[in-house]
């Protein structure tokens, strides 16, 4: 009896299951079609083999030549060559998982702390090979600062957050010098006015946008040559984003800035050049205007017009 009811009750299910299948069919088809498209795209690139546009620039400071990155067997960056000059803002764009963050982390060797990661090729900073044995990654990171996607102030006071870098690198000889560095950095990050009277309060108590500016202040306090920013505004509201974009504009007078962003508008607003990555390949690099008005590569065009992503 029981079994009969069971089998019968399962007879009852099919209608709804059919419904499910029906709703699923289109998406599956879409996925397949998409996959085919992507495979097609990859073939195209393999055919082309070369990055279009201009990977070289005047007065190059950071030079990456034929960089490959593997995570275990996953070939995340494929033969990327790119030059970055001393005073420019370059934006890295591309669909999720295409290797923008990975490439960025190569530039200050943050990939070292990932056990499975393996980097080959040459990257040099001001003519020095940063992956050579003699080069100290710790010293490198003082010269190539990094701002992360999510604001990550230390659970210390605002003052100590900014003073952290100068302290560990011995940049200040006495308290007065340290004070000055902290004030200057906060000033340049556009945060001084807001936190002047609360330097001893914890940095984690600030708003998200303030925290991100605190992180920028922390980074410029060690006086780096290059600043890497991995989606620095993705956790912020438009107003805080605008402030940080203004800040990047000012900072670009003194630093080379490499910014990863998912926002085409942001790339257009802040950067002088744009590099478009796709599935680990650097597809196109050029002046920002040129990329957005007249892209050379079909994939770039598809991406900026919103057909991939």
């Amino acid at each position, binding site marked *: *009896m*029981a079994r009969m*009811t069971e089998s*019968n*009750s399962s*007879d*009852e299910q099919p209608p709804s299951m059919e419904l499910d299948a029906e709703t699923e069919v289109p998406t599956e088809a879409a996925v397949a079609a998409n996959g085919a498209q992507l495979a097609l795209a990859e073939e195209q690139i393999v055919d082309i083999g070369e990055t279009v546009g201009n990977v070289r620039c005047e007065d190059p400071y950071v030079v990456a030549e034929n960089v490959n990155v593997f995570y275990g067997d996953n070939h995340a960056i494929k033969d990327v060559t790119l030059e970055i000059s001393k005073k420019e803002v370059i934006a890295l764009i591309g669909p999720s998982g295409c290797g923008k963050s990975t490439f960025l982390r190569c530039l*200050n060797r*943050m990939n070292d*702390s990932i*056990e499975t990661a393996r980097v080959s090729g040459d990257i040099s900073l001001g003519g020095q090979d940063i992956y050579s044995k003699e080069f100290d990654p*710790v*010293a*490198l*990171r*003082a*010269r190539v*600062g*990094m701002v*992360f996607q*999510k604001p*990550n*102030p*230390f*659970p*210390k006071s605002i003052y100590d957050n900014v003073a*952290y*870098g100068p302290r*560990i*690198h011995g940049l200040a000889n006495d308290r007065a010098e340290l004070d000055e560095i902290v004030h200057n950095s906060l000033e340049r990050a556009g945060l001084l006015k807001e936190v002047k009277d609360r330097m001893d309060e914890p940095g984690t108590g600030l708003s998200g946008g303030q925290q991100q500016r605190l*992180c920028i202040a*922390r*980074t410029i306090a*060690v006086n780096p040559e290059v600043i890497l920013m991995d989606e620095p505004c993705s956790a912020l509201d438009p107003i805080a984003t605008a402030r940080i974009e203004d800040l990047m504009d000012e900072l670009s007078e003194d630093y080379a800035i490499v910014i990863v962003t998912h926002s085409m508008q942001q790339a257009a607003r802040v950067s002088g050049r744009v590099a478009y990555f796709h599935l680990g390949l650097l597809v196109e690099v050029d002046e920002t205007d040129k990329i957005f008005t007249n892209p050379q590569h079909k994939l770039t065009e598809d991406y900026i017009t919103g057909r991939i992503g």
Partner: protein
Amino acid sequence: MSVAAFYVGRSRSIALVGGPKHGTELHSLPGYYGYFTAIWCLLPALAVLLAWVLLEPRVVVAMVIQGLPAEQQALSPGELDLLINNIQNLAAGDAVSGTVDAVLSDAAQRFLALTALSRRILAILTLGLGGLGAAIAWRRIRPDLRARNRVEQIVLLMLIAASSIAIFTTVGIVLSVLFEAIRFFQQVPVTEFLFGLNWSPQTAIRADQVGSSGSFGAVPLFTGTLLITAIAMFVAVPVGLMTAIYLAEYSSHRVRSIAKPLLEVLAGIPTVVYGFFAALTVAPWVRRTGESLGLEVASESALAAGLVMGIMIIPLVSSLSDDAINAVPSAMRDGALGLGSTRSETMTRVILPAALPGIVGGVLLAVSRAIGETMIVVMAAGLAANLTANPFEAVTTVTVQIVTLLVGDQEFDSAKTLAAFALGLMLFVVTLILNVFGLSVVRKYREQYD
């Protein structure tokens, strides 16, 4: 039987709405009607069964006593107990003290008969109740019966009952300790207990005994506990913390996967084993080393016990610190590394300060564990209640004294026995405070990053 009830209930629910095709007209899935019936079948029967098993012996014994001759009914309760014991033994076929007379064997016979009868009634009753329950449930099944809600209510009640067992037990223990301690304080003033410097709990059992002063100053016990705990923490905190730092930040995946389980083995060793390790290996070693340095070392020393206890606590400290360190978001690590700090700078300047509250909480929990530890101290630290801060002398702790107070023969309501409860109460209060404090620190810290 309740399994059968399950199927019956389910099929009825389906039948009621006119077959499985109309299953959606039921309020709940058919299975819930099944459970509903099964519960009705099972619960009342189980309740009766339980009550019966609890009450049966008393009722049977009372009936046996009723049947005894008047002269024996008039015996004092103690003797009557003895007699009943004899009867039960006789009935079970065991050895019996005293002679077996006709009255006794008669009573044993009746005892057996009554027990058998009771079993039979019980069987019939439970089966009947089960059937009745199932029948009632069966009648109550309607398409609009909210079977699912009912079943879930009952499940909820059972969960509540289960969790309250532990709580009530704790409350019961605390209350009984509290009442006994109050009785103790009626005999010995609280102030003497808390501030007295002399511990010598031998009270005279007979008035003419000598050498039994009966003083209950607990201070030497608490200083002894404190001394050993301090030594233990002196060992466990640095070692445990460094272990945690290494495992969390420096070790490769492979080392970690081997070392962590090994540490957990250390935590799993019974304390008795640590105890004789302390008494037979460490204590003589401490003594020999001490003597070669020209120090006077007792064969049972606070140092030996403290050292071994420290080793025992290492896994606790290291695993709690490990948790605290791992709970620091990796964004902190990246941020520090990205500013050009070395690994050790990252550790000492960013991660440890961020993890500190969690580590402190872990250490507090470890302290309360050390205070409550008994076995190692019994075996390695001795029983002498010395008031000393010298780690080479024998000391004793609160827990050890509780043990020694309660082993051996003594009257249950003597001051000596009751002192154990007072000590237990003190110990309980101290560890409770430490635990609450430690746990709240740990919890507060966890919330900080969520």
